[in-house]
């Protein structure tokens, strides 16, 4: 599904390398988790994959279903099936949440040569999916993320994921700022989307989220590289002992 090979990147503005050779393959149907201390490059990896400005890829490659994504525009990556659930979803005053989602869904369909979704069909589907995530009609009507609580913003991310039905979902610290109940709700939403033809990359600091979204593979990232890979037990080890031992091993 997602294949990252020897990915190097630096900040565009200054000569500072962030990713120093990431190798990672996420298979369809699998959930991979990336853990790591602050500043290890986890969020940068998600930004580089989704095409955010400010980073320059200096070496390596990243493909989605065999297609090079690093050369694509941000919106082309989305249409190709890449989805980034933001750590800090952006508030957009003046753009209705519903308008936003319908525009996005239809733009992607159009880019893939599919027929656009009618207003009625869209409304029916978004209402049903919103209900599962306990997103009420008012949240759909309000401007994108404006006045949403932390939990509401994250649920809104999952709703977008559900509507867009991406191939590859990257979740950037989706658990940050969530209480236990909200985390459960978000995790349920994600679990409902797990399917044999969809891959997940879950970036998190803590093992907590992984209690709810059970990963198949856990990676530890440190200083711009994946330094250790294992099963779910690796997350538990980190929870117990912290990153210090792993960092020492890889140093």
């Amino acid at each position, binding site marked *: 599904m997602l294949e990252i090979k020897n990915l190097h990147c630096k900040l565009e503005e200054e000569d500072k390398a962030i990713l120093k050779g990431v190798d990672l393959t996420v298979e369809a149907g699998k959930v991979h988790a990336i853990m790591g201390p602050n500043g290890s490059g986890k969020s940068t990896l998600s930004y580089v994959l989704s095409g955010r400005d400010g980073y320059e890829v200096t070496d390596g490659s990243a493909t989605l279903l065999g297609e090079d994504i690093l050369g694509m525009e941000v919106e082309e990556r989305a249409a190709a099936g890449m989805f980034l659930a933001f750590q800090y979803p952006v508030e957009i005053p003046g*753009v209705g949440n519903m308008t936003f989602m319908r525009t996005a869904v239809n*733009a992607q369909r159009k880019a893939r040569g599919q027929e656009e979704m009618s207003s009625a069909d869209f409304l029916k589907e978004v209402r049903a999916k919103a209900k599962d995530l306990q997103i009420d009609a008012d949240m759909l009507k309000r401007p994108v993320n404006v006045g949403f609580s932390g939990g509401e913003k994250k649920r809104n991310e999952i709703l977008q994921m559900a509507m867009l039905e991406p191939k590859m979902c990257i979740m950037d610290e989706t658990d940050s700022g969530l209480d236990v109940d909200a985390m459960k709700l978000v995790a349920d939403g994600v679990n409902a989307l797990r399917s044999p033809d969809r891959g997940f990359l879950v970036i998190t600091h803590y093992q907590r989220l992984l209690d709810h979204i059970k990963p198949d593979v856990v990676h530890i990232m440190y200083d711009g590289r994946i330094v250790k890979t294992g099963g779910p037990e690796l997350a538990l080890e980190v929870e117990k002992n912290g990153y210090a031992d792993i960092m020492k091993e890889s140093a």
Partner: protein
Amino acid sequence: MMALPQVKQDATDARLSTLSLPVQDGWTRSARADALSRLTARGLPAARDEYWRFTRPTDLNATEVPGAAPMDESDEAPIFDGIDALTLVFRDGVFDADASDDLRLEGVEISRLASVQGADIHWAKDLYGTLEAKGQDPVWRPFAALNTAFAADGVLIHATGTGTRPICIRYVHEKSDSDPILHHVVKVDEGAAVTLLEAGAPGARFNTVLEADVADTGTFHHVRAQGRNRERRANTHTFGRLGRESVLKSFTLSLNGALTRNEHIVEFTGDNAVAHVAGAAIGDGRIAPFHHDDTVFVTHDAVNCESRQVFKKVLKNGAVGVFQGKILVKPGAQKTDGYQISQALLLDDDSQFLAKPELEIYADDVACSHGSTTGSIDEDMLFYLKARGVPHRRAMDLLVLAFLAESLHEIESDDIAESLRTRLENWLDRHAD
């Protein structure tokens, strides 16, 4: 009175020599004469005048009309299409009776200045030129005085009850050198209500004045779309006087225009009244120059009144936006709630926004705020939209519309607001590069 500086004297004399007073002036005679004496005493503006610092008056002063080819707007539905309104059509300032509806509307008395001004008396006599004259202090507004003196026609609207549908003045611009001067008067009686729409550019260069006197508990809604003509020069004045518990809402949409100066002068004379003046302007300097100036002066001379000024501009390719807005709170105008926001969204480095927000407050128990910002498209918002698959162009348009949304919210009627939003979207579609 001091003599005018020679340059102003010359400019004023030259311009006056091209204008003539109507032969049959009846009840308007004294108002026109007074306005003319104001104009000769104070003269037309010069580039150095403080009030014209950001907008050069040259094209408005010119004795020869700077040419403006008419714009074919048939590629989209007419402005306010689908709004059931009583329509009056003016072609280059000349009333077109055949294209217009009958002037009868329940709850409202409508007449035309040109057809009734020969009489000795008319209800508009107490108003015509009155609010304009009052609005000349403390700031001189020469083109409004010129308008009162020389207006060739206009619509006189007297709301005695609730107008059953809006009145729409539809302007058609056909001649490239037309220079109409139109003067409208609206009188809203106690408890009465009326909506006035204005659509299109009245001419190549035009000067329009609207005087609106809203009596106690009356309501006046005014929505205007100034047409797409790129070369036109416009100078408009909207004067509002508000009685107790009355409401005035005025909104202007401006797309294109080589020169537009829209002035709003509002005065609260009765307590607990509400006035909202707002505008959205969008200009692309690539094909033709775009210069848009909103100049607003709100005077609070009553207790517990609310005023809002919401002006938004989107500028690209060397377009220029100007905002001069003032809230004056007179002694004793306690509990005044004054709000003023002027914002520009610059889509490139070539465009500019010049703003002069002012507050002048002589009462101690008031809440007044003003803000003025100049910014560019928010990169985080743009990335978020694109990360969901919205193409760059569409994402930019969504953010432009979102930026303008606050001003469109000031429009009372959703249907009317929607019709203007459609115009905006169409404009964005046409300026996709």
